[in-house]
């Protein structure tokens, strides 16, 4: 008897589970997804925005990666897509087919930071040519000692650490150093978790690695950032000032959000974007990113309010674009 009762309850519950129809939630909800690099900023904005609305608007943030985020975005599943690189040609095509139109808004800078062990006494600065010697695909198995990069450096083994091939950081670094996105030697210790790279460089005197600025800010005692020689021939260490004045190049890159045109018609999305572009600078800095100049946020907000659609990159990755140049360009869908 008891058993039959239990089975009955389980059966009813099972039926209810299967038969439930998707009901639209009564409460306003904004969905963001995409890059894990942009996630800390998006999370901070979502948290503060919900507090300011006293829970009347719900915001969710996922981390599917820049590419995974665009896949969902172009199917119309998300309202805002976080991206650590501009949208690519195939993704533009997918969005166009699905009729998803969007506004591209820069929200902060990230500075790719090249780090070495604090006990490393020989590296004072690095040129892009040095980095290319270490990281180009043909260096695989061949460049294994520091003195192969510059003869005055010691004949110590060169231990390289970097992010895995799915990361936007990897894409940007390879583009900036080797001239082609994703072109890199394969024999380095790759990890999707940047903390692993920090640990690797910290524990090996001969190590060199790279990751986003936020990870360097939190680990300044454990690793040393190497100044990068810019096009003007001046070695510049990563810092908020150097990124804003444009001297830390080509290693600083803008981060973006893409807002769908359909979602932007909803008041809660519009309010969130306005909040993002006004409160975002302080929040971005708090979580270890470099805010854009104030004018850039004002201009971005104007672009959003004027419904300026499309990307200014035309679907190809670019290195070393200044923020003024970026905001002055005409968008393309």
């Amino acid at each position, binding site marked *: 008897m008891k058993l039959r009762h239990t089975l009955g309850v389980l059966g009813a519950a099972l039926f209810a589970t299967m038969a439930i129809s998707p009901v639209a939630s009564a409460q306003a909800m904004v*969905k963001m997804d995409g890059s894990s690099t942009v996630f800390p900023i998006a999370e901070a904005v979502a*948290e503060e925005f919900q507090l300011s609305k006293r829970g009347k608007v719900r915001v969710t943030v996922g981390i599917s990666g820049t590419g995974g985020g665009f896949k969902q975005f172009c199917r119309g599943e998300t309202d805002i897509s976080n991206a650590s690189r501009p949208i690519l040609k195939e993704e533009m095509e997918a969005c166009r087919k699905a009729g998803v139109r969007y506004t591209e808004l820069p929200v902060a800078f990230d500075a790719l930071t090249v780090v070495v062990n604090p006990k490393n006494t020989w590296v004072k600065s690095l040129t892009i040519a040095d980095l290319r010697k270490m990281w180009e695909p043909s260096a695989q198995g061949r460049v294994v000692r520091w003195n192969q990069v510059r003869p005055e450096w010691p004949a110590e083994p060169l231990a390289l650490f970097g992010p895995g091939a799915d990361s936007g950081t990897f894409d940007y670094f390879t583009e900036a150093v080797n001239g082609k996105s994703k072109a890199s030697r394969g024999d380095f210790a790759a990890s999707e978790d940047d903390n692993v790279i920090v640990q690797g460089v910290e524990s090996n005197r001969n190590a060199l690695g790279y990751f986003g600025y936020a990870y360097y800010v939190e680990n300044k005692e454990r690793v040393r950032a190497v100044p990068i020689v810019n096009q003007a021939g001046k070695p510049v260490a990563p810092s908020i000032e150097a990124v804003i004045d444009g001297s830390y190049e080509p290693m600083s890159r803008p981060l973006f959000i893409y807002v769908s045109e359909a979602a932007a018609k909803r008041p809660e999305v519009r309010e969130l974007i306005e909040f993002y572009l006004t409160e975002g600078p302080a929040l971005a800095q708090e979580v270890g990113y470099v805010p854009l100049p104030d004018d850039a946020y004002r201009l971005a907000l104007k672009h959003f309010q004027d419904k300026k659609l499309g990307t200014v990159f035309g679907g190809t990755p670019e290195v070393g674009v200044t923020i003024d140049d970026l905001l002055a360009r005409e968008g393309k869908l």
Partner: protein
Amino acid sequence: MSDNPAIATFLDPKLVRDGLSRRKVLDQVFVIVGLLVMLVCLAILAVLFIDLVRDGSERFTWDFFTNFASRRAERAGILAAWVGTTLIMIVTAVCAVPVGVAAAIYLEEYAPKNWFTAIIEINVTNLAGVPSIVYGLLALGLFVYQFDLGQSIAAAGLTLALLILPIVIVATREAIRSVPNAIREAAYGLGATRWEVTKDHVLPYSTGGILTGMILGLSRAIGETAPIITIGALSFIAFLPESPFTSEFPFISFGWLNDPFTAMPIQMFNWVSRPDPAFQSNAAAAGAILLGMTLLMNGVAIWIRYRYRKKINW
């Protein structure tokens, strides 16, 4: 005494005694080796648990359970994660257990022994070894898009239910098989039908084993990250799913099934990869709590099994 030297040796009391004591020593050695192996396993678990508890000690506050995720490590909590995990486990159990137990009953008590049954059995056993990410991909296509469940608690629960179904089936079959055949034959002898035998004798006697299988399955499901990331669990979510209890008739609501969610392993994963080292203690605390949830589930199962065992009197 026999003339046969082999038998003579065998019967010699001194040799017999020597041989016996040597075998007893071997017996003791095995006991010690077995005990050591078990202690090593327990020690690893204990070290892991103590390490997590120590790293996360400053986070074990009431606020940690009642706060949502935050960019500030000391303000961040696991409310959305533990509620999400609990609800997903409920859906998983409600879906996997009846189906799994019914399948096992069919295979053990009803299915004719032919090639078709053999194929099903081989498949069930093989399914238990399929990597969980494969279930995630299947669920993404089937539940999220085909059935249009979206990135919801229902989709996650069903995914994990699929994942643990083979475990539940295999464990239930073992439990059913351990019921002595004499019980079945006696019942048949008194004119009981097959369903009556199953319902009144086989199932009550195998409940303990079935529950063990169910808990083994759920313990695996609770820590799974890959399949629920695949179907789209979120990383930041600062609201709870709809409450299952309402103030109006019928007082119960299933709206939460369609709500977006996050889960404990995802929250941990997210914290581990944060730049701010303060999040590492959050991750450790969440890990200790997840381990605690698993131990609690196991504890409940052991208690239920003990109660059922007491009722069995053959």
